[in-house]
């Protein structure tokens, strides 16, 4: 009984030390820390209520190659052809249209839609302000991530609405980088300009 109590005590001490070390090490990351009480996985309060404007319905997307879950979101979706039309629009460089890449640094640097701005939802403070400057007044903001089951583009859409970018200007390209690159569309390499 004494030995059993000792083992439980040792386990408790280890657990308490791990909590202390874990939170301490997390604090050392500075701005790059996990914010303990921030819900990183909110998709917006309109999920499932078909609240997209202009009669567009909230969509549920499935992906054949990653058949794990259905992604629900309230945002307007664009098909590949619609995204290509925007990309080829002669006014694409005037700021009317904006492409936002919601993937992480390595993926963005390896290749992204030319002209896209990166926005990492999990390190929002680093990315959101330059994005908001460009997004404010844009007619269509096309947000994408890896495609498949990737949800980060949905989270970035929510971030944009949280920063008062009009809901009707935000469009989700759920085919994402996977579809764009697989169809041989132009790409650009290199780090984000922030």
């Amino acid at each position, binding site marked *: 009984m004494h030995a059993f109590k*000792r*083992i*439980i*005590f*040792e*386990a*408790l*001490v*280890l*657990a308490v*030390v*791990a*909590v202390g*070390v*874990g*939170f301490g*090490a*997390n604090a*050392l*990351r500075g*701005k*790059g*820390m*996990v*914010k*303990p*009480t*921030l*819900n*990183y*996985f909110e998709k917006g309060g309109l999920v499932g209520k078909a609240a997209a404007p202009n009669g567009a319905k909230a969509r549920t997307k499935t992906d054949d190659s990653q*058949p*794990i879950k259905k992604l629900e979101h309230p945002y307007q979706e664009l098909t590949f052809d619609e995204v290509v039309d925007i990309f080829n629009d002669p006014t694409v460089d005037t700021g009317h249209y904006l492409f936002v890449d919601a993937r*992480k640094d390595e993926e963005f640097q390896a290749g992204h839609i030319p002209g896209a701005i990166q926005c*990492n939802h*999990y*390190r929002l403070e680093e990315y959101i302000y330059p994005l908001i400057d460009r997004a404010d007044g844009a007619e269509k903001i096309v947000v994408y991530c890896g495609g498949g089951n990737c949800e980060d583009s949905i989270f970035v859409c929510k971030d944009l609405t949280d920063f008062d970018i009009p809901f009707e200007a935000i469009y989700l390209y759920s085919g994402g980088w996977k579809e764009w690159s697989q169809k041989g569309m132009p790409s650009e390499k290199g780090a984000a300009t922030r």
Partner: protein
Amino acid sequence: MVAEGDAQRERGGDTVTASRSAFRRLMDSGWPVLMARLVLGGMFVYMGVMKVGDPLKPFNEEFLKLIRQYHMLPETPAIFLNGTAIVLPWLEILCGVGLLLGLSFRGAALLLAVMLAVFTPAILMRGLAILAEQGGSFFNVAFDCGCGSGVVVTWKKLLENGGLFLLSLLVLFSASTRFSLSTRLHSR
């Protein structure tokens, strides 16, 4: 005839007793527990370090996403999910170091046994969910379980975890304290 049967039983009994005492001698030598501690400790330090990454760089969101995929923790309040992502890798590292050094190693073995008892069925359930959607053979199901080793084949990971669970039980229930730092500290 009866006497011959008794003699055979006696010989059999002697063999069992001899192998039991050999097993006990082996366990008392402390080597099996030491080997178990080194394997368990090495594995968990490695897996914990892989999850922590560079502690001075921004956190890797992948681990947070991978924990979420199991749907074992509520998303609100966020502290459950985020706290797990913050603490779990360090708990694994501390338990691993404890086992390697022989410091609080039974407590570490208990924690690892509990973690493995929770995570292994979770990996199985996730593998079965993927199988239900994808079809095909369970032996081909592979995904990133968030274990620190990237994409793994599910059945191999389950076997590995089963082995680690048995090793943690061996360390937990063994009476041997040889080759441990805590014994040396207490003997002073």
